[in-house]
């Protein structure tokens, strides 16, 4: 008995029998399906709460060539849900520890898990071409935009090189999973306006009229930290830094008779912490892997294309086909219309643009069809274009002109048609 290794008896009936909802019953062949499953290369991005679950699910449902990327190391606060990690692993690479754990637990010589401890942006585009499916279990909006744009850019007009992207995300008792077929379904960028923005507070409230404990913490973090420590960056994992922040916030709160500044809240505000539990990660990761399994085996139809889940008020799911945006900067082919006031300077325009939910660029560079308006890089061009920041946009381009916005962190170029309105001068 002991000599036997872990087999796939748990999924044989699924692979061998054609069910009533199979969409390709005439072409379906069990043997080909088994081959497809064992030979397909799948990439898992993120080895955190979702990633641990995803790796486990893939390894138990017949996938044998699994790659995993994560730039993070293991932290104590991961242990309440990232079940492949133990206290002794704190400080080590998530991708490496996760891969080793799965290999050891599954004990199957045919299973190969290849970890990469680093950023997804460190790999060339060519690297991504080798995969049949990519599953994303990340909490970073920027990394998802990057992989989404990269996979969309690989697809040509005949839909060659189409690599499906399955994306999952969770927050507390809620989450969502979706299947993105680049250039076919809507993409991650198409739904950027559905991302919950980070709560921000007006500067004048923080500086002059704090009312909530959060205002006091923001004051310490946004205004007092740079004033006291200059260019030294605040490190939320450094207990001394956190203690300083907490004590200062507490002092300010006491001055204003505001109650409720605690260490827990301080950490929550400065780290923008999102509540997370193993249960929700399990649900969303399983949904993502179920879609990957159906996609590779063709045994049943796949999700078209978005499922929202919430478990805080009974159990609720909402499944629908999210429609792609024609003016999506990644998968669309139309420019997006924006309106600017005539009196806006270029700098004002860029500020407005960066804060827009569906755009969200941290370091945008702008050019028109004939000239650079403002470039962040290289330094000599930055210097040359900097004076434009203080000029009125309406003096730089004409009404109805198209401009292109790029960000060094994203392989995206956003096309905007600018329409002017309003007065020439800032109203008083």
């Amino acid at each position, binding site marked *: *008995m002991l000599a036997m290794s872990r087999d796939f008896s748990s999924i044989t009936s699924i692979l061998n029998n054609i069910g009533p909802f199979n969409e390709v019953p005439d072409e379906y062949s069990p043997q080909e399906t088994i081959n497809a499953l064992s030979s397909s290369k799948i990439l898992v991005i993120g080895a955190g709460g979702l990633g641990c679950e995803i790796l486990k699910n893939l390894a138990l449902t017949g996938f044998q060539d699994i790659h995993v990327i994560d730039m993070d190391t293991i932290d104590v606060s991961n242990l309440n849900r990232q079940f492949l990690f133990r206290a002794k692993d704190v400080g080590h690479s998530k991708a490496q520890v996760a891969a080793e754990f799965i290999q050891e637990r599954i004990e199957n010589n045919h299973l190969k898990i290849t970890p990469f401890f680093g950023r997804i942006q460190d790999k060339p585009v060519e690297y991504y071409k080798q995969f049949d499916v990519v599953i994303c279990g990340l909490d970073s909006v920027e990394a998802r935009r990057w992989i989404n744009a990269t996979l969309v850019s690989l697809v040509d007009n005949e839909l060659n090189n189409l690599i499906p992207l399955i994306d999952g995300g969770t927050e507390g008792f809620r989450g969502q999973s979706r299947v993105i077929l680049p250039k076919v379904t809507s993409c991650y960028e198409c739904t950027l306006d559905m991302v919950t923005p980070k709560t921000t507070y007006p500067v004048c409230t923080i500086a002059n009229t704090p009312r909530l404990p959060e205002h006091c913490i923001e004051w310490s973090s946004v205004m007092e930290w740079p004033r006291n420590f200059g260019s030294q960056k605040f490190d939320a994992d450094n207990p001394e830094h956190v203690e300083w922040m907490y004590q200062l916030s507490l002092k300010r709160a006491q001055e204003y008779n505001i109650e409720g500044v605690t260490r827990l809240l301080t950490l929550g505000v400065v780290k923008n912490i999102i509540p997370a539990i193993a249960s929700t990660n399990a649900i969303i990761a399983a949904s993502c892997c179920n879609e990957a399994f159906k996609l590779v085996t063709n045994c049943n139809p796949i999700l078209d294309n978005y*499922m929202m889940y919430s478990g805080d008020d009974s159990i609720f799911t909402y*499944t629908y086909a999210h429609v792609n945006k024609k003016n999506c900067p990644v998968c669309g082919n139309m420019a997006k219309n924006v309106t600017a006031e005539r009196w806006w300077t270029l700098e004002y325009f860029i500020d407005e643009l960066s804060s827009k939910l569906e755009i969200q660029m941290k370091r945008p560079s702008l050019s028109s069809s004939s000239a650079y308006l403002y470039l962040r890089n290289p330094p000599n061009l930055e210097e040359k274009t900097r004076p434009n920041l203080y000029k009125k946009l309406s003096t730089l381009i004409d009404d109805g002109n198209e401009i292109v916005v790029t960000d060094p962190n994203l392989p995206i170029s956003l096309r905007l048609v600018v329409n002017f309105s309003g007065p020439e001068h800032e109203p008083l």
Partner: protein
Amino acid sequence: MIDKETKYDRQLRLWASTGQANLENSHICLINASATGSEILKNLVLPGIGEFTIIDDKVVSPQDLSGNFFLKRENLGQDIATSITSNLSELNTDVKGHAINQSIKHLITKVESLFWDQFNVVIVSDYSPELDVVKDLLWDKRIPLLIVNSVGFYGSLNLIANEVTVIETHDPSRLYDLRIDCPWPELQEHADSIDLNSLSDQDHAHVPYIIIYIKVLQAWKQEHNNLPPQNYGEKKLFRLLIESYSRNIKIEANFTEASNSIHRALQVTQIPNSISKLFENSNIKDENLSLTTPIFWIYIKALKNFVHLNNNQLPLPGNLPDMASDTAGYIKLQNIYRAKALKDQELFTHEVQKILDSIGRSHDDVNTESIASFCKNSQLLYVSQGSKELYGTSLLQELLHSEQASENYNALGVYFSILTYNAYIEKFNSKPSIQDLETFSDLFFQKFSIDKAEVLPESILNTFKEVLSHNTQNYHNLNSLMGGIVSQEVLKLATSQYTPLDNLFVFDGIRSFSEKWKI
């Protein structure tokens, strides 16, 4: 040694230390050491459930190993309950795991019924013999039972509980109880003390909108037979009236906010129907109150008495939304709300104690925190009466004559396919496969006493075929998904926070779609 606050940081933000303490005092029982069951327990061991017990007499087979991450190859041939318990215990040293390597059939005849009292929630995963006996036993003991099934791409979950009551529902609508339409004397006095006309421009732009609303609404009522705005047109006029109080709506952020949030000004202070209905509940009739009445119902009785003494109003929660204001003005207002909330809490506590006295219970049976929490949430309380049945006539009617079902698909068909699947195992002691379609259909008619003249719709036949073709109970993605869902329900029940399922849930992994019913 890792401190718990750091380890549990991400979940404490959901249920705080009170929820965590409840969780750590909970003991969960799993009947059947299935893959789904292991996944459920993993999601409970990680956040620090107090104890768990697994009941199963089987030894680990290759099929068990195939779909269960919490079995190792070396466990083949060993007791499955012990193996899973030991592999799960590695995840969290704070948790105590116990294995009972006996069949439920045997155990149930052997143990005193007292044995079950140690559990806060019991879970049955996949087919189990003696399910009806277990169900009856736990129902009588008022211990919630979760029954979860996973067959192929389908999953189902029943919550069998006599009654579920939740105080901290974390209602997502985030309504604030501000009493703009009926300020209490201290609030009225404070509003009256602010003379908008005599304020400097700076102060005028910092008057919190609560004050603005109280003033404008009272002005409006004087002109309108003491009635608030009644319809859309009047609400628009009311908004204009608010804006007319501003010196310059473009720069006075407080007035802009006031104009944008008028639903807060027009919210009517009243007792929600869901709450006044509780006042009629037989649990709180004098003759039914006893030493064993749950504290929740004692609170409801006290709440009923409280509103009689308090102008038919619930206790004030006392929390405010943030709003444009200078610090002093906001804090002043906050203190007025808090003081009133505390006063209400005192009056409420007094009513609770009177009831406790009348039935000879100690005042120590309740504590200040739980009273404070009840008063804060008294508008949002959740109560549901459950059912012991797995199906009823109306559910069967819906199955056979559903208008929602399409020609080839019926969501309720998924559930009845699973019930029939278990009935088949009960009868034939083996899993049905696609070759057994006819026997399976016959069993369906027989089990649910359906007239054989009834033609089985294509949609139901399809779900039968799906379940029989893909008849595995160990398709891991479904195990893990259902495991996640069940563990969320256990967390809600154990922490007494958030609203649980009521009471039947079905997940379809082919359509990535779910539906709920109340039996």
